[in-house]
């Protein structure tokens, strides 16, 4: 008996000092979790930033990554519906069950745009809860950082002071950046744009850009020649500034449209790691607010 108590005494400090292991779906959530959690949290990012966030491959190696996680943070709004459920199901880890208090769905904490009034699959791959790419409004980043702070405190109250301090630092820095980006984008207000998929909805919303059409005929459905020809006519009529294009789809159709209509294609990274130069959240929005010339 004594032996066991000794062993327990030895092991106890280890568990006390062990970091919280938090699995997150996308790199931007990882960046926020690192900013708030700093050295108290080990962050495991599941998806790569340069891949289509709708089509992450549910590799078995990812099951091993979430198997021992203490918590899971996801984007939500059905962005992960094509790949996260089988990982959660097969990881046999009650801590990452969607009903666990160590599971966080960020979409529940921000207001989603473009919530469809009715959904039908003949309208393409529509997200019934609204557009899930909400982190691309830099104002939402602060809300998300606050949500993650509260979440970390709720599961690791011992370090609440650390999380509060890191959050305060982050929000000071971010508020200054918000002003810079706002003034940079001031002259872009009411500018019309075309996109491949409506990824930049929240960025456009934040800075008053209007997205008039997408290269996809329907959400999630690859370009068709009929739709492309119609789009070229629309561009000639409406004269948008440019085509905002993600990093993961082929730019072939966009370049064809560009050639026929004379408007340029602008690559818009959607997450940390989407391009080699996008190393953190600040460089992501620095890039995005400079991209449209």
């Amino acid at each position, binding site marked *: 008996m004594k032996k066991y108590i000794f062993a327990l005494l030895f092991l106890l400090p280890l568990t006390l000092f062990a970091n919280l292991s938090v699995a997150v779906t996308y790199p931007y959530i990882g960046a926020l979790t690192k900013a708030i959690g700093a050295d108290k949290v080990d962050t495991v990012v599941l998806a790569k930033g340069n*891949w289509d966030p709708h089509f992450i491959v*549910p*590799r078995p190696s990812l099951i091993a990554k979430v*198997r021992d996680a203490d918590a899971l943070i996801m984007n939500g709004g059905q962005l992960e519906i094509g*790949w*996260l459920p089988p990982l959660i199901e097969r990881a*046999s880890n009650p801590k990452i069950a969607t009903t666990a208090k160590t599971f966080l769905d960020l979409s529940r904490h921000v207001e989603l745009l473009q919530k469809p009034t009715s959904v039908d699959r003949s309208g393409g791959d529509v997200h019934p809860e609204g557009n899930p790419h909400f982190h691309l409004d830099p104002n939402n980043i602060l809300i998300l950082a606050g949500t993650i702070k509260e979440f970390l405190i709720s599961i690791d109250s011992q370090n609440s002071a650390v999380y509060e301090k890191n959050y305060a630092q982050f929000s000071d820095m971010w508020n200054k950046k918000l002003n810079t980006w706002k003034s940079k984008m001031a002259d872009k207000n009411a500018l019309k744009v075309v996109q491949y998929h409506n990824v930049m909805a929240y960025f456009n919303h934040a800075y008053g850009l209007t997205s008039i059409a997408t290269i996809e005929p329907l959400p999630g*459905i690859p370009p068709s020649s009929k739709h492309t020809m119609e789009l070229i006519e629309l561009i000639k009529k409406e004269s948008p500034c440019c085509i905002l294009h993600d990093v993961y789809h082929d730019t072939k159709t966009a370049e064809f449209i560009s050639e026929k209509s004379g408007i340029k294609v602008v690559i818009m990274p959607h997450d940390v790691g989407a391009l080699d130069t996008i190393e953190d959240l600040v460089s992501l929005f620095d890039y995005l607010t400079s991209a449209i010339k």
Partner: protein
Amino acid sequence: MQKKLLLLSTLCATLTLAGESGGSFDQSKFIPDISLIMDTSFVSRNVSNTDLEKSAPTSNYGEYGTFKEFNTNNGFNLNYAELAMHSNVDQAFELDGIFHHSTEGVEIEEAYFTTKALPYSLKVKGGKFKSDFGRLNSQHAHVWDFADAPLVYNSFLSPEGINAPGVQFQWLAPTPWYMKLGFEAMQKGNGGTFANDFDKKDGEALYVGYLKNSFDIKDASLLLGVSYANGVSNIEDAESAAAIYKGNSEVYGADLSIKNYFNSYSFINWQSELLRRDMISDDVTIGEDKKQSGYYTQLIYQMDENWKAGLRYEDFLQDSYGAKTTVNASYKTSEFAQLRLQYSYDETFKMYGNKKAIDEIILQLTFAIGAHGAHSF
């Protein structure tokens, strides 16, 4: 009759749940995820349906002369309409039901609970379910890369695969890579090698065990698995009901796949499996010992969100008359609808005692509606 009742009762249950919506005792929010998958095909082959039924595949050992579960007839086929339901039962259990409807009736393909709150990365499943033996056995037909299952699966594990009432234990090892260990005990009489057509005794089960590993090298995922099944083989001839084998059988499986992703939409997957069965006879006057191995190896290339192509080669290592080669191409209009054209050249058959190569073209359409869940890797 029973089958019709089952269908009616499942539909009634969903309709009554849906009917109450809006009232003070509204339970409509608790409707499980429901989906319907339909698979239909047009088949053209150089052998008549009757002749195909009379022909014997090289590895045949029992009742399934045509080796076919789907695409059986020359001309039009409704392969199945599969109704699937899934929901959490409570904080401890999930429940899945998959009802396989065909022109012959309704069958409970799977109905099982899964635990969701066990510690130490453990999971228990119980009910009737597809065994996790090998790489393909647990997969449903609509996720197959080909319109048909490999011959070695059909002949060793039966056209339905290992699918029986039982219990499954799975454990994820705390390794830096993915490692899963599983054990299953199932009611004997699965069919295929493990048929239990006569001399039935209580208490003997079909046992299955497997170890699966996976790790990544850059954008490629490697999967390596070994599987083992052991059970009674008391096999009768389907037509004459004469005993043709009595004993015990072991099936060993080894699988390897390397799947490399070029981007979010395009990949190449090389997948191979080798199965071996050792049938040990209790009575050589009924049937002798039989040792046999078979394999398939396949290459799948997904070009983009719409197009996919596949090539498969398969053969048996003993008692083989020849190999089977299959090529196909499929086009998806979305995640929920797929058109597939498949051609195969099959030299593994004997018809009326003579070798007969079978040419087969299948045009297959598969649709899914409702709350269709994501597929695992």
